[in-house]
């Protein structure tokens, strides 16, 4: 883990904690339902960007006041934080899983805040016939999340996990298919990169089509042999794809001879 700064920002009645590292264009990162886990992928991004890893309301050191009751509420809070951190300038936004759902809502409601958007295994559309996250044991969850469990971060403390599940429940109200977002995805103006791992056991990778079909300027990429946690299964591929997209935007489809990631 590189040299990191920590801080908090007050926004819409929330205290939002963040960790930051690196120099370069600013990027806000929103974690998934397991909380902020800063690994090799975020370190890699921090070599080219100023990465702010935010803790969503109700996670880690961030508060969850009564006024924040939904994913769009959380998106509004993050947008306000971005206004502070970016001093009014647009920032790139990356969201993983639950964080991807928040990021997509943020791009719908606050287009002026977002430069380029990356959705890593976004969890806004999870077929309702699949069991809820709370139905899985930590070991089961681990198998759905990681194609390569040896590279995975350690288990969370049960008390931490309990608090995370409560926050997820409150924000999503247990709704795994966000029909309102589905209707509004077409309003996203930011060029958007959608990543799904071919082994994702938590959200079927085919859900990527829903974003791809509706977001006007979007790119869907399957990351081979990664499960839900692409950052942990294929960290180098994640860094390369995301950096290239954030740097070149839609021109990232044009091959360059010097890129070579295995």
């Amino acid at each position: 883990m590189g040299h990191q700064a920590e801080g908090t920002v007050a926004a819409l009645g929330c205290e939002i904690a963040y960790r930051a590292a690196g120099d370069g264009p600013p990027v806000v990162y929103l974690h998934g339902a397991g909380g902020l886990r800063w690994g090799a992928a975020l370190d890699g991004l921090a070599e080219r960007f100023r990465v702010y890893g935010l803790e969503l309301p109700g996670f880690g050191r961030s508060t969850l006041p009564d006024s924040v009751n939904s994913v769009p509420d959380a998106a509004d809070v993050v947008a306000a934080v971005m206004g502070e951190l970016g001093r009014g300038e647009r920032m790139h936004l990356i969201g993983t899983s639950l964080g991807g759902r928040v990021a997509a809502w943020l791009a719908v409601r606050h287009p002026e805040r977002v430069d380029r958007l990356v959705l890593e295994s976004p969890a806004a559309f999870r077929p309702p016939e699949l069991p809820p996250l709370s139905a899985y044991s930590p070991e089961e969850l681990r198998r759905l999340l990681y194609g390569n469990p040896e590279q995975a971060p350690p288990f969370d403390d049960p008390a931490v996990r309990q608090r995370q599940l409560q926050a997820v429940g409150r924000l999503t109200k247990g709704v795994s298919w966000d029909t309102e977002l589905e209707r509004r995805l077409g309003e996203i103006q930011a060029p958007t990169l959608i990543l799904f791992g071919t082994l994702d056991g938590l959200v079927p990778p085919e859900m990527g089509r829903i974003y791809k079909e509706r977001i006007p300027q979007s790119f869907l990429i399957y990351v081979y042999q990664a499960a839900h946690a692409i950052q942990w299964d294929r960290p180098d591929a994640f860094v390369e794809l995301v950096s290239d997209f954030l740097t070149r935007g839609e021109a990232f489809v044009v091959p360059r001879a010097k890129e070579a990631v295995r």
Partner: protein
Amino acid sequence: MSATAPAPAAGPASAARTQPPLLFSFFHLMAWPFLDRPPASWPVSPRYFDPHRGRQLYREYLDQMVLAEELGFDWVGCNEHHYTSYGLMASPTIIGGALTQRTQRARLAILGSLVPLNNPVRVAEEYAMLDVMSGGRLVAGFIRGLPQEYIAYHVDPEESFERLAEAWDLILRAWTEPEPFGWEGKYYRFRTVSIWPRPLQQPHPPIFISGGSSESVRLGVRRRVGIGVALANAEVARTQFERYRQLARADGWEPTRDLFFWDQAVYVAKTDAEARAAFRGPIDYFYRYLLVPTRRANELVVQGGYYRSEEDRQLRLRRVREREAVTLEAEIENGRVLCGSPDTVIEQLRHWVRYVGHGVLNLRFQVGTMPHEQVVASMRLFAAEVLPHVRDL
């Protein structure tokens, strides 16, 4: 049946009574028949290829494949080889394209494009084109290729299995994905893939892989696709198919015999004596001329990492060496050759279908130097006097 052939055993086929009908596949290697001495090494010098004779050969070979459909064969097939007089089929999809225009009913078995050596998106596109152009008749071979093909296309043979697995996933994705997508693989990367056309058969054409090693048999079972064994004797084919059955059963399902193809060289004439006399030369040419360079290159590559298990490596080396000293009689006995009068070939087929338990008979009528007229005569005799008696085995 040769007197020393193994007695008909209670073969795997006897276990299952509700098997699908046998499928007869007419397979063509498109050999070069004009060598006057065995090539010294692999690759074979292009100087020995005469384009004018080549043109005539392609015409005759395609005519044979078209005739096969007329005569009632269910599949017509070809495969991919490089740098060799062994087969003039550097790109089997080109032959497939020609066949879409000259056949109406038979399945086109491209067995196949060498998936780890080609651009997988190109394979997906060409296979989809063939499927659409043929009206949904493609059988898609996802073939790893002979070891020496990795020298030809400069790919590390140790990567062959992983490349096959990844290319496979990518091709299926390209065939079935309704939106453009990118692929961040370990061997292949594309920022955007969006193929036109998509295949006609839905969700995609049937897939076959080669089943010559224990590892490929496991892969076939895991993905529930057909496997084929080529240039192998009956014992090897039976072992591989039986291994497949056992693994599938352990996995909770029962494979049908149409998942197994095995190739045999065939020649039918009026009498056994006539058939043997006529087939000796072509068979001899096949092993002593066409296969010589392949054998040497094989041994070279197999020393490296093409096979990941020692068992598979030894099996390949044994099979390679086995092909050094062959006689027509031994070939008939071990099952790689069917040869004789119609009655004899009926007997041979009855025996091998029961013994090996395969459901797709991949038959090669043009072997080595055998000229067009002789191939056609043998095919016609087979269709008239053998096929009707073995269809319902």
